[in-house]
């Protein structure tokens, strides 16, 4: 009987190969989304992602994929299982990156060309608010308690703290040049903001809105100008932070206890965004110039595989089964 169950399970697996984690990669130039099997890292599907798909995220239940289709000026929505396109969300012009409230609604979208953050209800598909921010809004982060959304403005060089109830800016923190990404530690103790041209990651105390530390990067044989921090992700247990270093083709590993860089991992070319598997076992990187995704073993800091995806991969999100 046990044997029969196993056989049944096997045949079910065969029939619905979607029983592993799946990795969704937005390809900015290819205008499509590549889906990888999260265990074998094989490409299992590719579907149309709209014009210039960049930011990509998933609903907390893993059922829906949201994509910033920048040149369509809307957020495209897909069923994470069937890959069918669902009704789009309004986004404001040129959406680049967004963040979903921890509850799954609403969606906070950075409108790069219009200096605003658009707040959209994903159920009613209505715009709830437009928050004026600095020039070239890009990075979007949300505090674990969902009370504060962070937007970084690339030419104003600030992290703007937006109250998620009033949609008003409550704090502005000046950081180094061209802030690209905002990421809270899972326990809410620190906010990390990467600065692409400044070459640093600012560690901000969310309680005081003060920069308490600046992480700098140095790789022998790599020009300092090439060390351009973009994507930032922290493990759920708070033990490691990973920072994508753009044209340096490396991901830095940081110990949050000291904010020291402990390792640099060589990945594909122009690494921008990062996403963990739901169990934090793997980290996936999008490498825009080599058109591939690198897979990092989070426990060992080893780059274990690279997978060719579409043209100019930009964003990545992983959905659990």
């Amino acid at each position, binding site marked *: 009987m046990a044997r029969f169950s196993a056989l049944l399970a096997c045949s079910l697996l065969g029939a619905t190969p979607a029983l592993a984690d799946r990795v969704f990669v937005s390809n900015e130039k290819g205008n499509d989304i590549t889906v990888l099997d999260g265990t074998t890292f094989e490409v299992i599907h590719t579907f149309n992602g709209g014009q210039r798909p960049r930011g990509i995220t998933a609903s907390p239940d893993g059922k829906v994929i949201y994509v910033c289709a920048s040149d369509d000026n809307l957020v495209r929505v897909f069923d994470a299982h069937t890959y069918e396109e669902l009704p789009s969300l309004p986004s404001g012009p040129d959406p680049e990156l967004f963040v979903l409230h921890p509850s799954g609604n609403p969606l906070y979208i950075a409108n790069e060309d219009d200096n605003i953050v658009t707040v959209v209800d994903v159920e009613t598909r209505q715009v709830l608010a437009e928050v004026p921010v600095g020039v070239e809004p890009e990075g979007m982060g949300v505090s674990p308690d969902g009370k504060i959304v962070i937007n970084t403005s690339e030419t104003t060089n600030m992290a703007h*703290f937006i109250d998620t109830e009033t949609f008003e800016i409550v704090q*502005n923190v*000046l950081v180094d040049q061209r802030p690209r990404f905002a990421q809270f530690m899972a326990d809410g103790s620190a906010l990390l903001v990467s600065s692409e*041209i400044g070459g640093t990651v600012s560690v901000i105390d969310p309680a005081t809105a003060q920069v308490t530390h600046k992480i700098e990067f140095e790789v022998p044989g790599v020009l300092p*100008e090439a060390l351009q921090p973009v994507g930032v992700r922290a493990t759920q247990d708070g033990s490691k932070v990973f920072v994508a270093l753009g044209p340096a083709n490396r991901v830095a590993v940081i110990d949050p206890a000291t904010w020291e860089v402990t390792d640099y991992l060589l990945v594909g070319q122009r690494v921008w965004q990062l996403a963990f598997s739901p169990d934090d076992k793997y980290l996936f990187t999008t490498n825009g110039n080599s058109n591939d995704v690198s897979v990092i073993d989070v426990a060992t800091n080893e780059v274990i595989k690279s997978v060719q995806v579409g043209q100019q991969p930009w964003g990545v999100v992983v959905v659990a089964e």
Partner: protein
Amino acid sequence: MRLIWTALCGAAAFAPGLALAQSEIRAAVLRVDVQQVAPVSRLDLPPEDLGIAGGRVGTADNATTGQFMGQSFTTAEVIATPETAVAELQKLIEGGTHFIVTLADAATTLQLADAAGDTALLFNARATEDRLRNEDCRANLLHTAASDAQLTDALAQFLMWKKWDEWFLVEGSRPEDTALADAYRRAAAKFGAEITESRVFEDTGGARSTDSGHVQIQAQIPVFTQRAEDHDVVVAADATGWFAAYLPYHTWEARPVAGSAGLRPQTWHPASEAWGGTQFQSRFEKSAGRPAREEDYQVWEAMRALGEAATRSQSGEFATLAAYIRGPELKLAAYKGQDLSFRDWDGQLRQPILLTSGPITTSVSPQAEYLHQVTQLDTLGHDRAESKCMLTK
């Protein structure tokens, strides 16, 4: 007055976290127009708002940031002639404007700098002449326009990378063409290229590509370039764009053209989309209704240097801002993949140079192989040791 007050109120509402004194930072763009021969192509005709449009985008960028800092930015726009330029400048300074971006030829730029004295900081956003960064440099004059030496070094590095080290230099007969050709001679010597032959293209005032002019050009240019010494590339020195565009495809030998036509060293190009450049392009095009020119970008750079200084120093004081702009702390992000700053010895903005070929950016200098003890950007143009400017020596 009421307008200003409104702006300040808005600023106060938006500035939580950065409790600051409110200040208004005033700048001006002063363009000095001279009568010039029209460029070879009508695509290169100067738009009416040349440079001014870049200032508008820069001011809007600064104002957006300023609302979070309690700072407002206003920019006056003045178009003058060489005869009225100094008077207009003095009017601006007397009216309390101390940051002035100039779009003028070298001689007028110098006149303006001398008239401004230490009461203003000028940004030269047009004149490329090397003398303004050397023997004729001024303490109150910064340059966001690249120097001829920066531009020619940028092209030279690429040609050397290609191993196209034998150049046929074709220079125009006007004084500004000679100055540019001198910059190419300097670049060739600096990077080890050989100018196997140079010829002067005389301005005889004829044969434009209008009507049947192209027939004459098709006959004239091959003859003009015939029997030159062996060369890998034709390098054209045409400072105002009056003949170089005739060279590609008409040269006697099948050789690529670079310099003032073909592969061109430029601070900006409307196709540049690297390093977030697309965002500048779309912001500019939305505002101006046309693609950005180098002059627009160079005025924008000056405005953003001022804005960055105001944000970082959290000041509206002339002396504080001017010191910050000149100082080592300025890290200007300008869609070039690295931060930019002004050289303390000659006031020149160090910046990567795009090498463009019609629809795209073909390469960007400095080339990775040319290293430098301070910054690779200082492999372009006159480095500290070779500068004839005595600002900090």
